């Protein structure tokens, strides 16, 4: 029996809710996932998902305490990635985030994304619900929301994805 080859890497970043952090988070995650998996497609999907989650956290944070976590595990050549953000939010956002996550989870990923895309004209100009649907469709990650008081934790889990994919 071949022994299981397993690798785990993680990062946790505590940062202030500032826009200038966003690009650094995205680019550092591209590097992180590329070094670990050599799969550019996966790195792009995870970095986009992380950037959208962190954007949400920065946009709706009511305190400077924003936390981002990434755990990537490779078991027998398949990578599984878990992303988390935590932030305090206004009561109305806390109420709506669970509803949005449930809506994003309905149907398959493309159905959900197209539903949110088609709703764009009905949304206020600065609404950001599209980002969570994009995580599910383009990021190929499932979403969960955990609420404790005013503290919102958004979690995204990837499906197992083969590592070491050479660029086309």
């Amino acid at each position: 029996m071949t022994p299981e080859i397993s690798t785990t890497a993680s990062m946790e970043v505590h940062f202030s809710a500032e826009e200038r952090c966003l690009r650094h988070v995205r680019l550092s995650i591209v590097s992180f996932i590329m070094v670990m998996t050599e799969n550019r497609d996966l790195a792009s999907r995870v970095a986009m998902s992380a950037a959208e989650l962190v954007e949400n956290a920065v946009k709706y944070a009511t305190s400077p305490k924003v936390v981002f976590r990434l755990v990537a595990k490779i078991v027998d050549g398949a990578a599984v990635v878990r992303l988390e953000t935590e932030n305090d939010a206004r009561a109305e956002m806390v109420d709506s985030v669970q509803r949005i996550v449930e809506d994003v989870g309905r149907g398959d990923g493309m159905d959900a994304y197209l539903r949110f895309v088609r709703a764009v004209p009905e949304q206020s100009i600065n609404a950001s619900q599209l980002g969570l649907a994009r995580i599910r469709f383009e990021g190929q990650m499932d979403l969960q929301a955990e609420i404790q008081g005013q503290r919102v934790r958004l979690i995204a889990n990837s499906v197992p994805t083969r590592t070491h994919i050479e660029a086309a």
Partner: protein
Amino acid sequence: MSSQLSFQGTTGRDFKATVTPGGEGVWRIDCHGTIDQTDASTSVQPVLMQLHEELVQSGINRVEVDLAAVEYMNSSGLKGFIAWFLAAEYSNGGPRYAIELVYDPKKTWQAVSLTVMEKVAPRAVKVRAMREAA
């Protein structure tokens, strides 16, 4: 004569689009840079909706939008483009001009999130992969 649109990103004027009215009813828009501000749609969407009005007024047949050189666009920036595509599809009783989106198939976000725009605005938007340099 070309004109230039630019949008603020998280590190400055990070996104630029050069609009070139061409002959034979075809305009060209070459885009490059990054859109990653949390409220990008508040600047992108009004500019693109104004552009839509200009395109309708000009009576053109087609606009070619080259997004292949765009490094990244967040969902807020995409939302601004989607609003334009839907306006082109449904306003004025149906498409008055076609939008041809050119994307880089090696960029995952473009290959996934831009190509589905044909499903969203099937009469107005056509998507094609960029041609490789020889």
